[in-house]
């Protein structure tokens, strides 16, 4: 199922958004959306095509509209301009063919790990024994077999994220949308899940759209890396990575690609830092700007 974005823009009204970048539960009184000059443009004229079975990573500084793009493809947000097509059909709402792993785990606190993972199968009407067997298989896959009957409040942040991944994979979606799914994990678990995700992607022939701010993660996994600019988010660079998998971190070709991506990304991060400093200290004299996320380099 190719994903096609044609000149997609998304503006948010200045009111009605929360710190987590999610809409507040207040309903707007039907004002003209996307018109006022004070509106915030999160994504600007993004056009891209993701082919069937491709593994695409989206890379960019914080607040540049990565989550917004994920939500647009998922059908949870509607673009203010442009079109989102999946399999040549315009996206009109969420569907179980495009499952999302959200930036925050977003588990259901009233269900156990098993209950959370089998939730989608239950909604699809699968009989209990079958869906539990399938759910347990994916719970073991993310190494939480011992916690199948635990509640989310008894899990660590990384464990919750693993449940969220299992909950998405168990649906056998054709498209998997992942919004920084591994950012809360320790290095070992992250590497492990990266390998497992790649294996599943190859085995299940799914299309993966994977948001990350980690250059190493993007280059180790992706067929293509899209780099998005500081807000308003636009695709700034596209890199195709044709190195065979599994990719070694020490492969000089990979390191060369990483250096290139990192250089360009740091420019964007510096822009974000400068913009926020201008907003906070408009009068302050300023030396050269140090990217806030310098330690990105240490991932290599």
């Amino acid at each position, binding site marked *: 199922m190719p994903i096609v974005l044609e000149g997609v823009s998304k503006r948010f009204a200045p009111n009605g958004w929360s710190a987590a970048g999610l809409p507040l539960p207040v309903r707007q009184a039907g004002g003209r959306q996307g018109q006022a000059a004070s509106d915030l443009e999160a994504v600007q004229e993004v056009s891209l095509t993701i082919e069937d079975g491709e593994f695409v990573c989206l890379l960019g500084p914080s607040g540049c509209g990565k989550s917004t793009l994920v*939500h647009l493809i*998922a059908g949870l947000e509607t673009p203010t301009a442009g079109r989102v097509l999946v399999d040549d059909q315009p996206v009109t709402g969420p569907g179980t063919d495009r499952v999302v792993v*959200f930036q*925050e785990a*977003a588990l*259901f606190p009233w269900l156990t790990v098993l209950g959370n993972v089998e939730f989608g199968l*239950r909604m699809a009407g699968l009989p209990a024994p079958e869906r539990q067997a399938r759910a347990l298989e994916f719970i073991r896959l993310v190494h939480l077999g011992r916690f199948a009957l635990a509640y989310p*409040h008894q899990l660590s942040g990384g464990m919750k994220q693993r449940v969220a991944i299992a909950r998405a994979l168990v649906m056998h979606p054709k498209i998997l949308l992942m919004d920084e799914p591994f950012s809360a994990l320790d290095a070992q678990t992250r590497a492990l899940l990266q390998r497992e995700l790649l294996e599943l992607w190859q085995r299940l022939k799914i299309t993966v759209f994977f948001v990350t701010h980690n250059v190493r993660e993007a280059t180790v996994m992706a067929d293509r890396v899209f780099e998005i600019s500081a807000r308003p988010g636009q695709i700034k660079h596209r890199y195709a990575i044709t190195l065979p998998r599994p990719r070694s971190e020490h492969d000089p070709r990979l390191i060369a690609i990483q250096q290139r991506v990192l250089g360009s990304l740091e420019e964007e991060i510096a822009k974000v830092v400068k913009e926020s400093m201008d907003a906070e200290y408009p009068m302050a004299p300023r030396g050269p700007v140090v990217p806030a996320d310098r330690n990105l380099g240490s991932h290599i």
Partner: protein
Amino acid sequence: MPAASAVFRIVGQNLSDPAFLAAMGGSLRRMAVGYAIVVVIGIGAGLLLGRYRLLDEAFGVLAVALHAMPAAAWVPLAIALFGLGETTILFTIVLGATGIVMVGTSAGIRSVPPLTLWAGRTMGAHGVKQFWHVIVPAATPRIVDGLRLAWAFGWRALMAGELLVASVRGMGQLIHAVAKSRQIPDLIALMVIIAAIGIAVDGLVFARLERTVRVRWETA
């Protein structure tokens, strides 16, 4: 003021007096029946108000008004409608405690975090399924808050009803009788028992329930 020791001696005597225990049993049974009706009507109506905006616009104000009205104010109307009997007291409990359950339930339904709804929708929870499998469970903490307050409101309403409908056997009737005889220690002993029952049920049932729900929902 009577000495605490005198009051507690009377409390002890009361609790071993079969006539008192019968009155207490009567009050508790009435409360149980009334509370059950409150739970069913309060949650049922609250779910409807939370789900259907139109209903809420039409009747939401009534729920709030119901919740703002002191239970004792319903007793005269109840007596006029149902006479001096059980039904009057049940009516008072129901009107005194249902409003808070309705308000809590409908507010809970309408304040489900958007991310929770989104997560459900991407996994195929729409419409009725979304309502029962996502929205209602997500609203549970607010519903439990309402149920806990309704217990306290209902207990007060019960006493108000029993005091004014003194022909029904219960603790309100005892207060009525003791007050006439001006035995202050006896009166205070009764009040201590009434307060203690209210606190005990709140602490043993509702505080625990609320704590479980809080821990699970808010730290997830």
